[in-house]
């Protein structure tokens, strides 16, 4: 099925060949977007370790995985995906290998415009889609965004009208069921003024096979909008997961992100938040829990464009086996962004003597009336804490598990959806049990 191509240019050529105009939609705007993305792919190269942004993450193994774009074929039953569904979550969009599955999806809330098939919503909301899709996640400097845009097919589209509060979280479930395919999931969330919504973006797999997921999410918050964005990546341990998420905040809006990264052989998550309105605020929490030979790379960028914004970020990594965690958190404060208040912390726990962490919290500050701070720590479990628990009668293993769990629970506990929190707590418990 896959023939080996060693050169990264050949790899891109191979991908370009598999791109065809047959998925052309009736909307010219969308076709144009796809065509210019494919042109952009032609002018770019796959990044290598000489690129500063990819210094610690070697994605050259990707060039050996010439997986074709996924086709619609699997017929999953509800019983197959039941374990991934969340209790009390009635708004659910399900994509199987990036093909929208209306049978498995369910939308209870009539207030939101929510659809998985781009084409069907396109007719009624063409102007909204054209003015937002591709506007936040730019593809000129990112090959993976360009590829995703070029292969744009079904996508999760959520439009929250002004002054609307969606109480039920929206669960976007992206399921991988085939092996040796590439899929290009895409999501767009446009939340109107004074609206509120909770979004769960969830990547799962039916079996432990090898595949590539290249996903792009765009979120636009209008003035006074509030979005809670929970992202869970629990792909197969053989998968490659490449993700870009671009968020744009208008005046007085609030964005809260919690990202949990558990799966994939190699994963990369780029989160770019632009605070383009005054008094906006964002909170970003991240947890990476990896072991074996996994590599998980998180790059975040918080761009303070306007004055009086605040941002808070915490990223935690727990690394076991010969796994390798990478974190790069950039905070940029532009000259006019006075009165910015920003803090960032990167905390890393190494559980084995072959585990590896590269962390780089980065501040770029061009305004003087600001308060910015960052901190980073790397270490192992505190021997005094272990001793304390042992003195209370816990075995060494239990003490270690408990402390490791507590380290992760700090992030998990921030998840506002109880059912998802329980699921993740269980996963973390299972993972830390083996340690």
């Amino acid at each position, binding site marked *: 099925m896959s023939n080996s191509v060693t050169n990264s240019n050949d790899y891109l050529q191979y991908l370009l060949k598999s791109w065809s105009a047959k998925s052309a939609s009736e909307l010219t705007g969308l076709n144009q977007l796809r065509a210019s993305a494919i042109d952009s792919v032609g002018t770019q190269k796959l990044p290598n370790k000489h690129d500063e942004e990819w210094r610690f993450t070697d994605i050259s193994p990707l060039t050996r995985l010439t997986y074709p774009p996924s086709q619609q074929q699997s017929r999953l039953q509800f019983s197959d995906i039941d374990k991934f569904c969340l209790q009390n979550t009635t708004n659910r969009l399900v994509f199987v290998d990036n093909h929208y599955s209306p049978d498995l999806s369910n939308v209870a809330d009539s207030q939101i415009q929510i659809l998985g098939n781009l084409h069907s919503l396109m007719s009624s909301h063409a102007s909204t889609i054209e003015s937002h899709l591709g506007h936040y996640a730019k593809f000129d400097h990112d090959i993976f965004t360009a590829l995703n845009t070029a292969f744009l097919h079904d996508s999760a589209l959520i439009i929250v009208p002004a002054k609307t509060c969606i109480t039920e979280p929206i669960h976007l479930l992206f399921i991988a069921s085939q092996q040796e395919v590439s899929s290009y999931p895409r999501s767009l969330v446009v939340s109107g003024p004074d609206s509120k919504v909770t979004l769960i973006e969830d990547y799962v797999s039916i079996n432990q096979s090898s595949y590539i997921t290249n996903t792009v999410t765009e979120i636009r918050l209008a003035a006074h909008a509030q979005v809670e964005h929970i992202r869970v990546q629990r792909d197969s341990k053989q998968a490659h997961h490449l993700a870009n998420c671009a968020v744009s905040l208008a005046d007085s809006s609030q964005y809260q992100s919690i990202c949990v990264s558990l799966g994939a052989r190699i994963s990369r998550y780029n989160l770019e938040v632009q605070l383009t309105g005054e008094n906006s605020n964002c909170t970003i929490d991240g947890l990476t829990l990896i072991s074996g030979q996994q590599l998980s790379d998180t790059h975040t960028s918080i761009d303070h464009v306007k004055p009086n914004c605040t941002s808070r970020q915490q990223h935690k990594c727990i690394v076991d086996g010969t796994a390798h965690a990478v974190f790069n958190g950039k905070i940029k404060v532009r000259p006019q962004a006075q009165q910015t208040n920003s803090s960032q912390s990167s905390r890393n726990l190494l559980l084995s003597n072959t585990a590896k962490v*590269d962390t780089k919290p980065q501040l*770029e500050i061009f305004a003087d009336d600001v308060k910015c701070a960052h901190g*980073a720590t790397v270490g192992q479990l505190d021997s005094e804490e272990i001793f304390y628990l042992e003195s209370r009668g816990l075995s060494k293993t239990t003490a270690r598990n408990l402390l490791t769990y507590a380290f992760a629970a700090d992030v998990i506990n921030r998840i506002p959806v109880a059912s998802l929190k329980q699921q993740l707590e269980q996963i973390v418990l299972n993972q830390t049990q083996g340690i």
Partner: protein
Amino acid sequence: MSAVLQSLVNQPYKHGFVTDIESDVAPKGLNEDTIRLISAKKNEPEWLLSFRLDAYRKWVTMSEPDWQNVHYSKIDYQDISYYSAPKPKNKLASMDEVDPELLRTFEKLGVPMHERAALAGVAVDVIFDSVSVATTYKQKLAEVGIIFCSISEAVHNHPELVKKYLGSVVPVGDNFFAALNSAVFTDGSFCFIPKGVKCPMDLSTYFRINTEGSGQFERTLVIAEEGASVSYLEGCTAPQFDTNQLHAAVVELIALDNANIKYSTVQNWYAGDENGIGGIYNFVTKRGLAKGVNSRISWTQIETGAAITWKYPSCILRGDNSVGEFYSVAVTNNFQQADTGTKMIHIGKNTRSTIISKGISAGHSNSSYRGLVRITPTADGARNYSQCDSMLIGDQCGAHTFPYIQVQNNTAKVEHEASTSKIGEDQLFYLSQRGIGAEEAVSMIINGFCKEVFQQLPMEFAVEATKLLSFKLEGSVG
């Protein structure tokens, strides 16, 4: 308020005069012949010439680094004179034979060259346009076995030591500027502290660029044998020219078992005028190898001058229990750009490092801290603590932090923290209601901000640094 601070920051550069002294200047341009010429002028042995040529051949294949956060127009390496020496350069028997014009220059700069000026109690090696002109207290140091002389003299008198250590910490092909330096370095200081000797006085090198259109490429080599200890100071100034001058130095420190080297720099190269015209490009490679067990290398730097600073004094902590320290204050004003920081490479067991970096930016300047802490798999029990704080004065400047933390050992403990802020209105208000003028209050706050670093400096330098900082920032607070 703003005006007071403004005037506080903008004191003119005091050391901008040119000494009218006849110099022997090599024609501009760089090729193998230039290197042979330098080598011949200095009457060097064959091995050193091949060391230089090797470096040159590597340099030709390298390209100028562009990852640093500074911007400048391309340097034309063929438009620089690679050798400039004050002319009457006979062997000097004593300080009395030094050209009086030169002596006056250093008198003006406040460098104690006369042995009579023993008050300062510091042995000085003076480098004028990259040639060592005088070294004081040689005799006294020789009594305890310390060799302190110019590197050219060391090449002739102690070739075995120079040959053994030169390029052992910074290999000739290490980076673009280090390769250039290795090819064309003209002089520098050499210091060797033998086994068990505690150097009785502070050693010091004073660098002065004088000739327009020349580059300064000096090389410093400090070796502390088992149990030895030394404190080394370095100061730099240059005259005011509209053209940019290149300073690409290499400093290598080697500390064997239980040795202790403390290296302090007060860098006050000409920084260019208030419009950013002229100034020195300060592209320096400094690295210390803590080779032996329990050895210690400590870098302290006060960077106030130079149009562009590109400098990362590093420690390679190879010996078990070795210690690396880096204390830095970088002050930038007008259009200065500084990209500076350190690298701490932990290889030995239980190695420890501390990084304290303070950046102050004013005017249109930009300062960046760029640091690397790497814990290799062999560095069991390694420990690092880094703290880098930036202070911004005015809304046209920038402060940046790029800390790289790479850990491959789970018994290591690494901590990093950074903050950026301005001088608080409440702090100023508090001081002014205690009757302290605005200017003094600002100077007090800034000195407090830098205190942890100033404490590391030898006393005379600390006084100088505090003074330097106060004029540097004169007028920029408000």
